């Protein structure tokens, strides 16, 4: 049976669990299975006077990777709404606007999410893979659309936000992957994040456990140095105890740098669809 992929996949989880490598590998997986897919991530969390104000896009052997810039995204939105490139360019440079975006929690994510959804809207075949911010920030992000319904009680942003919300909260459109490591602390955090997300959105939230040494060394436990053996045994305990809640368990990759790890992962990602 082939499952029809969703249109938006959001990867989140504690920092350092391998979100970036995994989301890039997943785009590669989709492309190898004849889908159109793009990797998106957020370049910056706030507007500053110094940073360069454009998206950076690279294509690495057929895989599109785009790092969205906040100022660019804000400008594009205002430009479309006020139908003036010049005014939009001026507004995003004013201190008042910078303060507004930087201080109001989630405003940056609202702008980014709007931009992310554009990619899906403009091309009905496009699958967007979003390498999202870590844990707490992910909650702010998911919450931002709802919050802004409350903050702005009417107006264009209010209407736009409502439209965004209906997409993001559509289980046929969006799926969220929480990435975790097979350690006690990381697992605990993944579970907390998953339940936090479930409180805020009806879409599927699945947990993937990344970089597991244990299944790899199952037959060789006695040959490991004592510390690594203990690490593998801790992983075993966590995996056995919580297996039913883990949608996907990915073994430690034998790649020697992030690129080889990414290529190595591609073959194990069918469960993430």
């Amino acid at each position, binding site marked *: 049976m082939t499952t029809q992929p969703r249109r938006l996949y959001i990867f989140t989880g504690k920092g350092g669990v391998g979100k970036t490598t995994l989301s890039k590998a997943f785009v590669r997986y989709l492309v190898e299975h004849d889908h159109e897919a793009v990797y998106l991530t957020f370049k910056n969390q706030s507007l500053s006077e110094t940073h360069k104000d454009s998206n950076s896009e690279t294509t690495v052997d057929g895989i599109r990777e785009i790092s969205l810039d906040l100022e660019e995204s804000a400008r594009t939105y205002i430009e479309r709404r006020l139908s003036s490139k010049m005014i939009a360019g001026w507004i995003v440079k004013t201190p008042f606007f910078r303060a507004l975006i930087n201080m109001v929690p989630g405003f940056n994510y609202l702008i980014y999410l709007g931009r992310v959804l554009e990619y899906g809207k403009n091309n009905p075949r496009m699958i967007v893979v979003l390498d999202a911010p870590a844990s707490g920030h992910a909650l702010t992000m998911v919450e931002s659309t709802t919050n802004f319904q409350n903050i702005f009680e009417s107006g264009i942003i209010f209407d736009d936000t409502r439209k965004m919300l209906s997409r993001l909260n559509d289980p046929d459109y969006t799926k969220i992957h929480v990435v975790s490591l097979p350690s006690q602390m990381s697992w605990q955090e993944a579970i907390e994040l998953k339940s936090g997300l479930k409180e805020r959105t009806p879409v599927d939230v699945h947990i993937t456990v990344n970089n597991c040494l244990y299944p790899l060394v199952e037959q060789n436990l006695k040959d490991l140095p004592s510390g690594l053996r203990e690490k593998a045994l801790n992983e075993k305990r966590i995996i056995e105890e919580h297996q039913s809640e883990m949608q996907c368990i990915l073994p430690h990759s034998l*790649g020697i740098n992030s690129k080889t790890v990414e290529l190595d992962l591609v073959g194990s990602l069918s469960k993430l669809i």
Partner: protein
Amino acid sequence: MTILTKSFEIFCGTGGVGKTTLATSRALSQASSGLRVLLITIDPAKRLKDLLKLTGDSVGEVTPVEVSNIKLDALLMSPEKTIQRMALKYHTPDLASNRIVKILSRPYGGMNEILSLVEVQMQFDSGKYDVIVLDTPPGAHFLDFLEGIGKIQSFFDQSFVELFTYLGSKTVNAGKKFGFGIINRVISGGLRKLLGYLQKVTDAKFIEDFIIAVQIIYKSKEAFLKGLSLQERLKSKSECNWFLVTSVEQGKAQEALEMKQHAKSFMHQDHFLVLNKCLEQEMSDWNPVDVKLQAIKTSLDSREKELKIILKQSFPVVLEFPEIMSLEPIEHVINLTHKWKTYVI
């Protein structure tokens, strides 16, 4: 390598590198030498929170704790409580009751970084501590905390100061009474135009509420500016130790390089790069025969070595901490406390 004791110690880093555990162990190591230490932490994992007894009523309050017979004070930041203390200390009750300020000071809101600095300043003013260890909010990036401070500066930058001095408190009341139109009329041309445009996409009421909130924050500027002046002291070599934490697990060498570029404007140059969760020592005597195990060793080894080479080229001092193979946070903290001791005379 010796790390001298300073009045302030700041831990920066992305989530999941063990920043809070390292800051806690550092605070304990200082306290065990008889120093009066306050640990201010932001977002510890639940089990570490339990260990430090920072749950329930303790949240946002200075709490005496004892770990492995070492005593120190700990404070789990609650932006809301910090705002309340500021309102009390500086006699600005509006600060604690305004709707928008409440939204801004929510976790992950725009005011977290400045509020933790204000909190450090207020605790330092109490004169009760030799050392204050600050575990900063986790960012997606090393620099998020440092750059966050700049956000509040844009509140107090020239155009804002002029604007809100000009508006004054009377305008707030007038705005409340007569609606947004009056505020509109008194605001100078450029800003009025901007607000007009913004109103088209948001709504008038939000912009009005936001301006009132900014004025309230501006009235408490003494507290915020003190927080900002603390930032200057943190740049001084004699007053502050900066620890930038990353982990082998994360292996984000690129980030470290970017860090080097940006760090200059935020902190002094003899900061420490802390590399956590090193496996090198663990694997040094391991010579597996099995081909698969050899491949595992090579993958772990080469990723760690590559990272170390890059870090050592980029940072004046790299402090290495081993990965602690234990399920218990208390063992992590105690092990790392001992490790810190090896860096101190």
